[in-house]
């Protein structure tokens, strides 16, 4: 059977269960596909082909013996390079961790292994997940499969790209301010940032601990849900996780109320993006949803609050990279103080340094009240506004990102403008809410994908998936880039 690699995970699962193909066959097909296409899209920092084939063989053997198999048995996937897979490198696309070998598994990895999934490699990302374009990677710099001269979005750039380029059916990303949803939108795939506390953060190198959440990326709703179901749930190693059971989803929006907040459709949003998102809303309306105008007035302050809290936590999380115990060691090792300075100055890229200094600044003595404490109050207010808004609607729809994929280097030297593009996604991380980017056509000026975002109530991923499934059916599925 050719093009096994291009099948959906659901189809793979069916074929595997009917024993029409083996996991080894699928895995080989995926490996060949990656070997053939990855030089063009550069989705991976490292491959895990040898282990993948061994694991595929093991799953096939288990199946042959009639043993009970996990939900993702024999299906290949990729994980972002900030998620530990024991024995493989976890680089965070940084010189700092270029040679760091994970000595333990992330809980997500344990769950994937328990589901008998086949991990084929580690996908590239913005350095330490700081960025929304993928450009800050110090290792592989992923390209957008729809136009390889354009950015794929970030920070989960490689995970988005490997899915968009049909190298694997789905992949795991992480999202701190839109790092799953933005690259999903830019590359025309689906990406879910679950409710904070749904997926364990243990073994995932953090950016901002109170915002980080891992989630699935896929080309269709069923595959996305399948992967989500396999990784979610309470983990005793992550104190913020909650008892959570994912209880499936429907395909009808009849009677559902969809909130549309005007603040998310402002001047900064490109007209082409607005048009496509409004069309998507119309489609859902035609399927029986009720559309309600809502307001989330604190949104305009969210960006500032986000960057303060995010950078404060990031600066603290990144303090441990000092060259003493692991990772890159700087050029001057004559004493500890010089080692700190040279390690950190040589090992981190500019974007990382900028955020470390920003985070250090907002927490430093005399600044903390003006910045950090004010940001925490804004966070609280914003969360309260969402709670209020959700009294009148079931889900909220916004653009996933104000722009479509730009050309590499186009926005260099203007970090504030790039940060501003994150406004649609960051509010969910601030409020801890789940959100998903769903493709909704193309920007006719550059033929790049547009995505809309479905925001749900806390722990109501099922509502989001129901809306997405209804939309997917209504539009007859999503476009896949022939590549």
């Amino acid at each position: 059977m050719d093009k096994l690699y291009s099948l959906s995970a659901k189809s793979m699962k069916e074929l595997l269960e009917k024993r029409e193909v083996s996991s080894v066959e699928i895995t080989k097909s995926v490996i060949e596909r990656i070997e053939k296409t990855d030089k063009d899209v550069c989705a991976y920092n490292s491959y895990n082909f040898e282990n993948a084939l061994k694991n595929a063989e093991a799953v096939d053997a288990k199946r042959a013996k009639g043993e009970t198999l996990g939900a993702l048995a024999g299906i290949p996937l990729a994980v972002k390079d900030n998620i530990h897979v024991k024995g493989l490198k976890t680089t965070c696309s940084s010189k700092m961790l270029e040679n760091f070998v994970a000595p333990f598994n992330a809980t997500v990895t344990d769950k994937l292994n328990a589901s008998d999934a086949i991990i084929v490699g580690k996908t590239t990302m913005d350095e330490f997940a700081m960025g929304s374009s993928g450009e800050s990677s110090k290792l592989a710099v992923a390209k957008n499969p729809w136009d390889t001269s354009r950015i794929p979005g970030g920070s989960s750039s490689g995970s988005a790209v490997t899915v968009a380029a049909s190298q694997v059916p789905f992949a795991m990303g992480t999202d701190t301010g839109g790092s799953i949803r933005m690259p999903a939108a830019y590359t025309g795939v689906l990406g879910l940032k679950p409710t904070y506390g749904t997926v364990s953060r243990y073994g995932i190198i953090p950016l901002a601990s109170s915002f980080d959440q891992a989630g699935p990326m896929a080309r269709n709703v069923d595959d996305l849900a399948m992967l989500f179901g396999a990784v979610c749930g309470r983990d005793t190693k992550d104190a913020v996780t909650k008892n959570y059971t994912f209880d499936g989803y429907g395909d009808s929006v009849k009677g559902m109320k969809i909130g549309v907040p005007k603040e998310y459709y402002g001047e900064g949003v490109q007209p082409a993006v607005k048009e496509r998102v409004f069309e998507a809303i119309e489609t859902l309306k035609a399927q029986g949803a009720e559309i309600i105008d809502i307001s989330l007035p604190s949104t305009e302050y969210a960006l500032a609050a986000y960057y303060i809290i995010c950078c404060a936590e990031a600066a603290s999380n990144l303090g441990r990279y000092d060259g003493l115990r692991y990772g890159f060691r700087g050029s001057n090792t004559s004493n500890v103080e010089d080692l700190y300075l040279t390690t950190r100055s040589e090992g981190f890229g500019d974007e990382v340094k900028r955020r470390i200094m920003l985070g250090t600044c907002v927490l430093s003595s005399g600044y903390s009240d003006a910045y950090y404490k004010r940001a925490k109050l804004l966070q609280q207010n914003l969360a309260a506004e969402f709670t209020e808004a959700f009294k009148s609607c079931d889900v909220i729809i916004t653009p996933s990102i104000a722009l479509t994929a730009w050309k590499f280097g186009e926005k260099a030297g203007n970090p504030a403008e790039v940060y501003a593009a994150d406004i649609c996604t960051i509010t969910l991380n601030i409020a801890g809410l789940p959100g998903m980017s769903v493709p909704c056509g193309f920007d006719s000026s550059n033929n790049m994908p547009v995505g809309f975002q479905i925001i749900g109530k806390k722990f109501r991923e099922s509502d989001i998936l129901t809306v997405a499934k209804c939309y997917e059916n209504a539009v007859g599925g999503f476009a896949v880039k022939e590549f």
Partner: protein
Amino acid sequence: MKIDIRHIAKLSKLSIPEDQIERFEEEMQAILSMVEHLPEIEGSAVVVDTTNTMELRADEVIPSASREDMLMNAPQVAAGCIVMPKVVE
């Protein structure tokens, strides 16, 4: 608010070359200026959110990891320990 890049860099254990200080300063200033436009909001954030709390762990031993695994990324190991440059107090 004016940022003292040299002071912040020192706190962050980063050395920023003199010729890049201005660029970092401008870029960070642009981001911090967003913050300066924050409204004067009333009240203060909740200190301990009693509606969202965590479970504590029982005091039970979990077998430790192997020393070999724990030291596998260390740049230098001797006598079962990571070696680092001499700490002068």
